């Protein structure tokens, strides 16, 4: 996939795709809907969601990420209907209503969820 105007290319944005045929939302970009094969449109997400899972990472594999230890990696179910991985406040719990900000990590920016 070519560069997208989201956090993976240093823009403070979360993008997702929705299917023109079946309406399914997907986070990992593709040229088609992974449910039905239909055409997709790209949308900017509100950044709002709910925590699905969390893990506090205390052992990293690279020097760049080690400098940030410990950090909380979360899976968030966005209100738009897709799930994404991100960072978040260390005390986030499953079920918390959250909203995305962006924080630096290892020379880039990553989505960082805080309680709403």
């Amino acid at each position, binding site marked *: 996939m070519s560069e997208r105007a989201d956090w993976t290319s240093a823009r403070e944005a979360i993008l997702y795709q929705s299917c023109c045929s079946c309406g399914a939302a997907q986070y990992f970009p593709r040229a088609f809907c992974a449910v039905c094969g239909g055409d997709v449109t790209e949308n900017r997400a509100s950044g709002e969601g709910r925590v699905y899972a969390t893990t506090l*990472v205390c052992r990293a594999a690279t020097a760049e990420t080690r400098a940030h230890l410990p950090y909380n990696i979360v899976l968030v179910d966005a209100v738009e209907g897709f799930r*994404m991985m991100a960072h978040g406040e260390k005390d986030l719990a499953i079920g918390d209503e959250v909203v995305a900000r962006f924080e630096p990590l290892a020379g880039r920016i990553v989505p960082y969820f805080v309680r709403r």
Partner: protein
Amino acid sequence: MSFITGVGLTSFGRHEGASSLDLMSRAAELALSDAGLVRREIDGVLCGYSTVSPHIMLATVFAEHFGLKPSYAHAVQVGGATSLAMAMLAHHLVDAGVVRHMLVVSGENRLTGQSRDAAIQALAQVGHPDYEVPLGPTIPAYYGLVASRYMHEHDVTEEDLAELAVLMRRHALAHPGAQFHEPITVADVMASKPVALPLKLLDCCPVSDGGAAFVISREPTGEARIHVRGCAQAHTHQHVTAAPALGELGAQIAVARAKAIAGLDIADVRYAAVYDSFTITLAMLLEDLGLAKRGEAAALARAGHFSRDGEMPLNTHGGLLSYGHCGVGGAMAHLAETHRQMTGRAGARQVRDASIALLHGDGGVLSSHVSMFLERVR
């Protein structure tokens, strides 16, 4: 029909100076000897992969090195499910008459051949390259996410998970080839260094050097008559971000298919060999497979149900958690141990009755699953 006619397993841990090919060769030699076969009788080779020495044609690299000229050979890559995926493929190829004696082999100097950081970093790449890996996850982090959700939905505690680490360690104490020989307690697991909470160091399998092999043949080559009764796979996703809900994971799908193919039920199983990369992996798979009720794997472990003399002996060699994990060979050790149990050759670890075994492997982040029933026939 297909029969597992021989198994070979090296010790796991440190094998200073041994390459992946060396470890594969040692395991292959043991498996051939166990099957009573010589090199020229092997007409098929399946192998896994080596993260230390990646190669686009590992099976033929190995065949040349070991001295084989097979009529069928290639590598297979399904992460932690590779072991049983190879066994399943070997079964079907042998059953279809394509191959007479398939050598399945893997080995890796994953511990001494690279730094721990390199090993952890290499494995983290199963994550999505753009939308997961840049967040600095590790394999324990992917499983830490799953663990947090599973514990949340099913009231499982960290102490519960620790029971499974303690059980695997107790089993490893009875196997001279295991990487770890010091007993541990639930308190030790709880006090071990945090890795990706809720997972701590002793909830995680180690990185090991080691090798494993087995031969799957059209006919028995000796007295052992252990045949593949039925097997099946399920693949629901690759990345944890795209995983289905906990109640819809591939283990349940794969085992349901395997039961139908084998005409067996969980009540028929006498020995279990289940992938245990982390304590959470083992707890979830035991419950998904139906070897424990939802949320009860730890209680059963505590009560001795999965012990050598319990109702459902499990991973009596110590599993990945305590025998060790050298990559693809790690879960091949489960099959090697199962074969030794089924043929009454497990020595001090021998269980009463291993006439029917259920094996299960998981690759990625509960992404790829293979379930297999083995049966001893007369």
